[in-house]
């Protein structure tokens, strides 16, 4: 059997969803144009800059270079799904507190990449943060505050635990 359109079942920001997509549709276009989730940014369009980072089954990926049909059976988290019922996620609070952004264009990708780091390693050293976050670009070069924001988010997460 071959097809040019595909039916998908997936979880998007915690909600069960179904959709039909063209086989050639990219994940970033599906999220931005079909789901109206414009927090995911297109920039380099070649897996380098990380502005389009989303978490697919918890792993950071470039949504600019994945097909939307790969969502089938999976869970995707975009920046719109990060805040919980009790308000902003610790990473979001820390980025505000530490000024972890300037123009803000790289911020959704930075925060989601940082989430995958903290999920893997809740208490990273500065070197580990630098090494991991090396994947994403901030063209305002506000890296120092981004690193401080991630350290602060790790602190906030520790404080939240009894």
């Amino acid at each position, binding site marked *: 059997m071959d097809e040019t359109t595909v039916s998908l079942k997936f979880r998007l920001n915690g909600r069960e969803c179904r959709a039909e997509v063209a086989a050639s549709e990219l994940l970033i276009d599906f999220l931005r144009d079909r789901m109206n989730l414009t927090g995911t940014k297109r920039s380099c369009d070649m897996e380098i800059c990380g502005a389009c980072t989303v978490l697919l089954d918890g792993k950071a990926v*470039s949504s600019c*270079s994945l097909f939307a049909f790969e969502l089938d059976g999976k869970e995707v988290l975009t920046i719109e799904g990060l805040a919980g019922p009790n308000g902003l996620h610790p990473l979001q609070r820390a980025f505000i507190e530490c000024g972890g952004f300037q123009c803000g264009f790289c911020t959704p990708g930075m925060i989601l990449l940082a989430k995958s780091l903290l999920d893997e390693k809740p208490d990273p050293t500065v070197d580990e943060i630098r090494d991991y976050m090396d994947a*994403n670009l901030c063209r305002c070069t506000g890296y120092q505050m981004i690193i401080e924001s991630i350290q602060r988010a790790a602190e906030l997460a520790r404080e939240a635990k009894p």
Partner: protein
Amino acid sequence: MIDDFFLHQPDSLPGALALLAEHPDEARVLAGGSELILLLKMRLVASRHLVNIKKIPGLGDLRYDAESRALSVGALVTHRTLEQSPIVHDHFPLITAMERQLANVRIRNVGTLAGNVAFAEPHADPGTLLLAYDARVKLKSARGERTVKIGDFFVDYYQTALGPDELVTEIEIPAPPVNSTGAYLRFCPGERPMAGAAVILQWRNGACADARLVLGCVAPTPLRPIDVEGALAGKSRDDIRAAAENLGAGAASMTQPLEDIWGTVEYKRQIVKTLVARALVQASQESAAHG
């Protein structure tokens, strides 16, 4: 953005191979897609039929056989899986170190080793190290299967021995003999490496019994400077450290780098010389990572 195509998602290997046999010139294989999707977006390749192999069971297997001392890397094994695998770390520490610095974590989460090899981008890390290990590429088609040494698999810039109806199903990496040490170093001013050097030295009675040296990114395919390998044989650790600069210069003279935004031919040869010298010094330390 990307031209429409027919999507095939076979759930068996024979199913995938039949599709490739049916559409040898129009079908493209999707594993990780981290290279393919870029090419489709830029319309550098066309795909009337896309064959997604992710639903085929078994292609994601990563196994180490203690008897044959070989690592089998299935077509769907990602760079990130290799980076984080304790078995890879125990038996192939150079692969762990190479994977840790490959591209970025988003690409490592998606991209596969087999896909990287099949793409044969000359500015890549894995091929250089895999040639030092003398890895083998297993190819299957509806016609049968064959195993190709990686040195024969890479043919030219972006060209491999892979036939239009064939699929890379596995990469097999034999562990070097015991008493081997090694190093892999690369220079990467952008997203892709500009030059790389892999060395594996086998030791017997304090002398180098056999040497494998591979230069990456500085020729159409990963390159073995055979004369330099020959010159390493019989040398002690001290001899190799003392001769490292000269051996590096000899290796660099055999390269054919492309002049591009990352440097001139002369500059790239300087980088190769330095990388080879440092890799030889590193591999000659008593405490060097085993190859």
